[in-house]
């Protein structure tokens, strides 16, 4: 009998703490699949965030350091500058990268730091219970925008790929999603490309992943996946925003 689907060996046999329908589990699995397929288990060092991705060391069979909220790109910089031949990536949510850690992320990109940022954008602060994120859409209801996000009061959703694409140091920026099988395949390819480019010394890469958060969006899992296609991609269009030849 041929095995067509199995747990990647690098994904520990632990129960995810993620809520039902959450996209983090898919992203976690993709990362371990890619690292396994590229045979990088002995080289990879992951920088985990504060937020929903904070327990990555419970799931990943690779070295993991946990950074303070927002500091992933700075910690990854320190690690990479000591071990330039290792694959170093930080895993960050929208609050982590686009709000409290905006400076660290932007300047790592601007330095052309040879690291990869896996940026999970679900438009909401998940771990703390559904508050507004910098990527929350206008009119989107969260616990801190109870009547919907009002631009006059809370500003506009931050488009990280678009902003970072203006930085000369950024080498590869792509926005993908994990809401449909075809999108998941694309997301995996983007992650693999970012890692390959890092190993080739191409400089800063970032893969932004639109990810469903049904619990905090107050939707069913399927509805959340559809909402990404129908609403979220209008603010956050998918595609490659920058790819410097290497």
């Amino acid at each position: 009998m041929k095995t067509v689907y199995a747990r990647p060996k690098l994904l520990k046999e632990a129960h995810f703490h993620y809520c039902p329908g959450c996209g983090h589990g898919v992203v976690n699995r993709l990362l371990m699949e890619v690292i396994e397929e590229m045979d990088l288990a002995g080289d990879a060092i992951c920088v985990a965030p504060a937020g929903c991705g904070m327990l990555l060391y419970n799931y990943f069979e690779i070295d993991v350091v946990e950074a303070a909220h927002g500091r992933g790109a700075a910690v990854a910089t320190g690690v990479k500058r000591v071990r330039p031949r290792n694959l170093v990536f930080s895993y960050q949510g929208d609050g982590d990268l686009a709000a409290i850690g905006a400076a660290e992320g932007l300047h790592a990109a601007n330095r052309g730091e040879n690291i990869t940022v896996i940026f999970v954008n679900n438009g909401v602060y998940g771990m703390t219970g559904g508050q507004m994120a910098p990527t929350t859409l206008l009119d989107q209801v969260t616990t801190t925008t109870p009547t919907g996000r009002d631009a006059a009061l809370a500003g506009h959703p931050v488009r990280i790929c678009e902003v970072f694409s203006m930085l000369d140091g950024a080498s590869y920026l792509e926005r993908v999603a994990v809401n449909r099988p075809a999108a998941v395949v694309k997301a995996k390819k983007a992650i693999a490309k970012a890692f390959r480019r890092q190993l080739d010394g191409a400089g800063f890469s970032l893969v932004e992943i639109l990810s469903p958060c049904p619990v905090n969006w107050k939707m069913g899992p399927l509805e959340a996946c559809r909402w990404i296609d129908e609403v979220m991609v209008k603010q956050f269009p998918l595609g490659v925003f920058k790819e410097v030849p290497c």
Partner: protein
Amino acid sequence: MSGNAALAEAAILSGCTHYFGYPITPQNELTEYMAMRMPGAGGVFIQSESEIAAINMVLGASVAGARSMTSSSGPGMSLKQEGVSYLVADELPAVIVNMMRGGPGMGNISAAQSDYFQATRGGGHGDYRTVVLAPGSVQELTEVVPLAFDLADKYRSPVIILGDGMLGQMMEPVDFDGLVRPADYDKSWALTGARGRPAQAIHSLIFDTRLQEEHNWKLQRKFRLIERDEVRYETYLADDAEMIVVAYGSGARIARGAIKRLREENLKVGMIRPVTLWPFPMKALQEMAKTVRDFFVFEMSAGQMVEDVRLALEGQGRIHLYGRPGGVVPTPVELYRIVSRHYHQAR
């Protein structure tokens, strides 16, 4: 050499390979020296986008097993406290330099000792301490640097070097000949990629309340060990003294000048100069209190170190305080007059 440059050179000679910093006066000579010297020494220098980024880069470099360092002054040290707390919790070595200036707020760039509490009480969130080394001369700056890296590696915890604008910017002859690079400690805990060993993690998130407390007790046991074994201080003309001045860093230099004058008038005044502000030389002060009644605390802050002196003496002796907060640096003559007055009043 300036104290700042001497400190940077001493760090490189001590095996520091990674320096991350953000400009702030009065420690810029240190950052600039690192920018000039580090690449040639085979190390890494990055001017970070903020103090917060710098301390987190230090944390990352330490995670990967390197001797790493950052430096700053008051306002920047406030920003670094988040990272210091994580370094302690993660049990990561690092050396952090604070060339103190007058505060609070923006303050100014003249020398002060206003960050004593911040340095000796932990400084960031959580229940912790960091070793604090307070050198009193440019030569001593170069001596505490290898010690700082050694203690950081030995205890897997950040060490703070507490200087001030005067010490950092004054020029004095320096001899690096005696500087021995601290031995390397086992760093099998470092993250290097899980090649030939199981994957490992460095984190301070501990969900289980009992495990969190256990981790805290582990840190506390380490702090007790440091208190037992790592106290360092120097005495000056203390053997026959009837009044002991307690002062550190630049304050101790000023006090030394004052004491020389007092001795010329046959006033029996000596000094104890804590080199480790934490752990504080509690026992040494208690011993002195058996024969000395008067302790004169002099600090370039309104009254921070005096609290440790009170804790050490536990009600023995009489404590006099001359604390001048950030702004004007007191002169030896000024201190001489005040100590002299207290000395005569005490008799």
